[in-house]
C-alpha cells in the first residue's frame, strides 16, 4: 500500500502542515477582534476548545462519547461557584474547575471504557444525564436559573478582564495552549498507541499494550480539556447554566467536530465557529436555526464525510 493511500494521521513522520495550520489559525484569531465582536469570539473560542477536547477522544481514540457536556457543564459550574461564591481569582477558579473536570473524567471514564461501541456511548450519555439532574437539584447551581453575575476579576491580580478585548486575548492564550496540547498528545508515542487502538484494538492488545489504560488516559485528558473550556466559558459569559450541562450540548459538540473534520487538529475549531456563527447571526430567524443546522449536518454526512477541513486535507494529501 502506498503511503498516500493510508489515512494521513497514520503516517509516523511528523508533518509540519499541522503546525503551519495552527500558526495560520492563531494569526487569524489575533486579528479577528478587529472585525468581529470580541465577546462573541471569546465564546466561540471556548466552544472550539471544547470541540478540540472532544475530537481528541473521538478523532484519535475512536471513542464516541455522548456525554461530554458533563465535563463542560460541571467545570463551568465549579468555576462560576469558585469565582462568585468563594471569591477566587479567575486563574485559580479555572485551574481548580479544570482539575475537578479531570477527576469527573476519571470516574466516568473508568466506568464507561469497560464497554465498547454503542454501549460505551450509552454509558457516557447516562452519566451525563445523571450529572445534569444533579445540577438541576443541588442548591449551589440554582437549578434552572443558573449561576449569574460571575465576576471576571483580575487575572493574576493585574490584568482586568472586564474589558472585552483583554478578555479575548486571555481566552485566545488559553485556547492556543489547549490546541497545542492536543497536537502534542496526538503526536506523542502515547498518541500513536491511541491511534493504533482506534484502528485495531485486538491487535494492540496482542502487541502487549494494556489498551484500557490508554483509553482511560485519553478519556481523562479529553475531559480535562473539556473542563478547561467550560471553566473559561463561565468566566467569559459570567454565568453557568443548565444549557452547558444538557445533552444537547453533547450533541452540539459532535456536530461541530463532524462539520469541521473529525481527526484533524484544526477541523473542530472551524466547526465550532460555523455553529456558533449560525446560532448568533441567524438568531432572528427563530426555529429556522435548528432546521439549517440539521440541513448542514445532513449535507455534511452525505457530501463530505471527513468534514470541511478533513476534505481539504484529503484533497491535498496533507494533515491539518
Amino acid at each position, binding site marked *: 500500500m502506498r503511503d498516500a493511500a493510508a489515512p494521513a494521521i497514520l503516517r509516523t513522520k511528523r508533518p509540519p502542515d499541522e503546525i503551519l495550520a495552527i500558526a495560520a489559525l492563531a494569526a487569524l484569531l489575533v486579528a479577528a477582534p478587529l472585525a468581529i*465582536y470580541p*465577546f*462573541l469570539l471569546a*465564546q466561540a473560542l471556548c466552544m472550539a476548545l471544547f470541540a478540540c477536547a472532544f475530537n481528541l477522544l473521538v478523532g484519535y481514540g475512536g471513542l464516541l462519547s455522548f456525554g461530554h457536556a458533563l465535563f463542560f457543564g460541571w467545570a463551568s459550574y465549579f468555576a462560576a461557584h469558585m469565582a462568585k461564591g468563594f471569591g477566587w481569582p479567575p486563574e485559580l477558579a479555572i485551574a481548580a474547575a479544570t482539575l475537578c473536570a479531570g477527576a469527573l473524567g476519571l470516574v466516568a471514564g473508568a466506568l464507561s471504557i469497560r464497554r465498547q461501541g454503542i454501549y460505551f456511548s450509552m454509558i457516557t450519555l447516562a452519566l451525563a444525564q445523571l450529572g445534569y*439532574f444533579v445540577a*438541576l*437539584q443541588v442548591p449551589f447551581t*440554582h*437549578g*434552572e*436559573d*443558573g449561576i*449569574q*453575575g460571575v465576576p471576571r476579576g483580575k487575572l493574576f491580580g493585574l490584568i482586568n478582564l472586564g474589558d472585552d478585548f483583554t478578555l479575548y486575548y486571555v481566552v485566545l492564550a488559553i485556547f492556543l495552549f489547549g490546541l497545542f496540547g492536543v497536537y502534542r498528545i496526538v503526536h506523542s508515542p502515547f498518541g500513536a498507541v491511541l491511534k493504533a487502538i482506534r484502528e485495531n484494538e485486538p491487535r494492540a492488545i496482542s502487541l502487549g499494550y494494556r489498551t484500557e489504560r490508554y483509553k482511560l488516559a485519553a478519556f481523562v485528558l479529553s475531559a480535562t480539556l473539556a473542563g478547561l473550556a467550560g471553566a473559561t*466559558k463561565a468566566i467569559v*459569559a*459570567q*454565568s453557568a*447554566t*443548565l*444549557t*452547558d450541562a444538557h445533552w444537547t450540548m453533547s450533541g452540539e459538540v459532535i456536530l461541530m467536530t463532524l462539520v469541521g473534520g473529525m481527526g484533524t487538529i484544526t477541523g473542530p475549531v472551524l466547526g465550532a465557529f460555523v455553529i456558533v456563527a449560525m*446560532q*448568533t447571526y441567524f*438568531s*432572528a*430567524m*427563530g*426555529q429556522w*436555526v*435548528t432546521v439549517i443546522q440539521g440541513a448542514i449536518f445532513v449535507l455534511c454526512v452525505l457530501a463530505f464525510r471527513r468534514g470541511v477541513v478533513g476534505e481539504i486535507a484529503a484533497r491535498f494529501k496533507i494533515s491539518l
Partner: protein
Amino acid sequence: MKHILQAGAALALILAVPALAQEKTIRIGVLTDMSGPYADVGGAGSTLAAELAVEDSGIKARGWTVSVVSADHQNKVDVASNVTREWFDQGKADVIVDTLNSGVALAVSQIVKEKNKVLLNSGAASSDLTGKSCSPNTIAWTYDTFSQANGTGRALTKAGGDSWYFITADYAFGKALERDTTAVVTANGGKVLGDTMAPLNNADFSSQLLQAQASKAKVIGLANAGADSVNSIKQAAEFGITQSGQKLAALLIFISDVHALGLKAAQGLEFTETYYWDVNDQTRAFADRFSKRSKNAAKPTMVQAGVYSSLRHYLKAVEAGAPVADGAGVVARMKSLPTDDQAFGKGSIREDGRKIHPAYLLQVKKPEESKYPWDYARIVATIPAEEAFRPLSQSECPLVKK
C-alpha cells in the same frame, strides 16, 4: 453682518439637527423565545405587541424615530447575553422587553445594569427579579411566581378549596411555586395533604395523578410549567379528575396553553392571569387590534399584553423628558409616573421595580359554554392590585428602604 448671522443660524441649525435626531431616537429590542416551548406565550406576538405599542403611542408623529428589533434567545443564557451585549455595544437597543425565561432575565438584567440601559421584563416568572436580584434598571411588569401562587392559592382556598395536594416539577422553580402556594393556603385556613414530585419534561403523570386522586384533596395544585402542565392537565382529563369533583389548579399556565389544550381537556381548570383579554371593553379593544394582525388571529397572552403595556409606559416616560441614554433615569421616571393603558388599566410601579395591578382567578369554561372564538374562561375572583403581589415589607430587594 446680516449674512453672517444668517449663515451662523444655518450652521447652528445644521449642527443641531443631528444632535436633535440622536436625542429623539428610541431603539427597542424584543428578546424572546421564538422557537421553543414558550414561543406562543411570547415569541412573534411579543414583537407585534411592541409594534402596536409604538403605533398606539403616536410618538412617531411627534418627531421621534423608533425602531424595533427582535431576537430568539433559544432559552439559552449565553445566546441571550451575546445578543444583549451586541445590541447595546453596537447601538441597536436602548430597552429590552419580554425575556420569557428566568435564567435569561437574571443574566440580561445584570448586563442592563452594567450598561445603564432598561429591561422591561414581562415573561420571566422569577420573583428574584424584584427580590434579592432587583436592579434600578429593571421593571418586572406582568406577573411573578409569588402572584401566581398567591392568586390561585388564596382565592381557591377562600372559595372552599381548603385541602390541597401538589404535583410538583422536581426542580427549583416547581418547588418554589409549591412552597409559596403552601404558605398562602395555610395562611388562609387550608391544609396541604401531601405532594408528589415529577421529573422535568415528564410524559406520564398517571402515577402522580392517581396519588392525587386517592388523597381526596379538594384541589390538586400543578406546580409545573410548559409541556409538564399541558401533559398533566391532559392526563387528568383522561382520568376524569375534574368531573369527579376535585378541582385542578395550574399555578403557571397561559391562555395560549388553554387554546392548545382545547376546552374539552382543560375544562374546569383554575388559573391566575394578570391580563385576560375578555375582562372589559378596554382589554377587548386591545385584544381585537392585536388578533387582527397576529398569527391565527390569536388573542394576546398576559406576557404579550405586558410587553405592550410596559412599552407604552416607557415611551410615555421618555416623552416626558427622561433621557434615553440614562437607563436608570428612565426607570426612575417610569416609577414616578402612574401607568394607564388599555391592557392593564391604571396602575403603578413600586420602588423595587414591581408593577402593580389586579390579578384574576379564572376558570376554563366547558365546551358548550364557549360562545365565540377564544371565549375560554370566566372570572372567578379578582385579586386587588395591593394584594396580588409580594408586599414590600417582605422584599429582599436592597433598593427598598426600610
